[in-house]
């Protein structure tokens, strides 16, 4: 037991590497704060365009969403970070990660919001339009609020997944939490940084996990 603790919860090692972990945490939080709104905005554009039911556009939107959803986000990141330089586009690790994760999740958010909009009865839209609201006003003030309410659980769930996904930026050497922990582990020959990073992720995200679980239970119960 003692040996286990000196390995996995070594306070000396922790004292030495915690500044590194805090820096990593900062990058993870920043990456999430930039990417989540961007991905939601992109997904929203897809969903609203879809809701206009333009015959030539909707199949394209479905293809966009499904291609992004069938593509591992890490593959997208590697393509952007290591592939684009071949055509002279060099992105730093941070913007590359933002782009890859936001594009990937725009597919997920787009699909969730699209399905949410479909749950709003047609009459709502017709009633809104007949009071003189424009198509965009109808979308934003009448349809979207109800749509978001109906898909709150998957929206929150996807946001949790997105924040977890930021850990893939470690593959392009962005010093976020996961990467910092790996660097610390290799320099101290001790797994405590990994334990600490896991603990930080858990403390950071556990409230969101609970919230998602509660929303999901409500959704299942209402069916």
């Amino acid at each position: 037991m003692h040996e286990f603790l000196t390995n996995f919860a070594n306070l000396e090692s922790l004292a030495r590497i915690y500044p590194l972990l805090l820096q990593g945490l900062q990058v993870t939080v920043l990456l999430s704060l930039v990417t989540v709104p961007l991905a939601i905005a992109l997904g929203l554009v897809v969903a609203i365009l879809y809701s206009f039911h333009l015959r030539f556009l909707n199949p394209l939107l479905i293809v966009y969403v499904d291609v992004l959803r069938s593509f591992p986000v890490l593959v997208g990141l590697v393509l952007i970070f290591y592939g684009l330089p071949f055509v002279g586009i060099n992105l730093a690790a941070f913007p590359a990660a933002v782009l890859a994760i936001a594009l990937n999740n725009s597919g997920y958010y787009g699909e969730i919001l699209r399905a949410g909009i479909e749950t709003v009865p047609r009459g709502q839209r017709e009633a809104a339009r007949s009071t003189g609201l424009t198509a965009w006003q109808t979308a934003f003030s009448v349809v979207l609020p109800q749509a978001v309410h109906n898909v709150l659980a998957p929206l929150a769930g996807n946001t949790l997944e997105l924040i977890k996904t930021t850990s893939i930026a470690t593959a392009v050497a962005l010093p976020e939490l996961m990467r910092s922990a790996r660097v610390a582990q290799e320099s101290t020959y001790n797994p405590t940084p990994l334990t600490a990073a896991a603990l930080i992720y858990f403390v950071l995200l556990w409230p969101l996990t609970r919230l998602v679980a509660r929303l999901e239970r409500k959704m299942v119960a209402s069916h």
Partner: protein
Amino acid sequence: MRGFSETFFNPGVIARYLPALLSGFRVTLELAAAVVTLGILLGLALAVVRAFRVRVVNWVVVAFVDVFRTLPQLVVMVFAYFGLPYAGITISAFAAATLGLGLVLAAFAEEAFWAAITAIPRGQWEAARSTGLSFPQALGSVVMPQAIRIAIPLLTNRTIAITKGTALASVISVPEILDKAQSAMSLSANASPLVVGAGLYLAIFGPLVAFSRWLERRFGWIT
């Protein structure tokens, strides 16, 4: 334009590295199969155990689910691969990847199965018990068949999303598609292997995403 196609669709490079990429394709399929098997079966087992409502056991199940829903897959994977050896447990990269993704999928699967079990009306339980079935019989022959049907559409998207995470295994050097594509890319100084790798992922997950869309239409679920 010629430069573009030579960089991203170079026939010579593709021909040279196709065997390596196809071997990666096989490893990806094997890893995906291992992850889905471990994740779904463990999740189902945990939900069944939870249905017996033994308080201490339930705490353990809930703690397991919360931990593995909250931690990023990559963190679990890296911990299994780089952390466990310090405790004297050395596992292969393939096993670490299976464990990392499988445990996370198990947590989601448990939640879905459990939500489905609790969604079965009380009357079903009571009717089953009053015909003389024991509790395990009622659970196994009456409740679970219905619960599994409810859980499938809840689970498909999540299962696909987590299975796509097999690409993460490249971080711990499992020789799957992305790993092979990246080493081929650096050996050939050409992006074509990565494009082919991306195509292979689309070939695996595109049909699965289309299938999940069909399931959703059919069952009317938003997942």
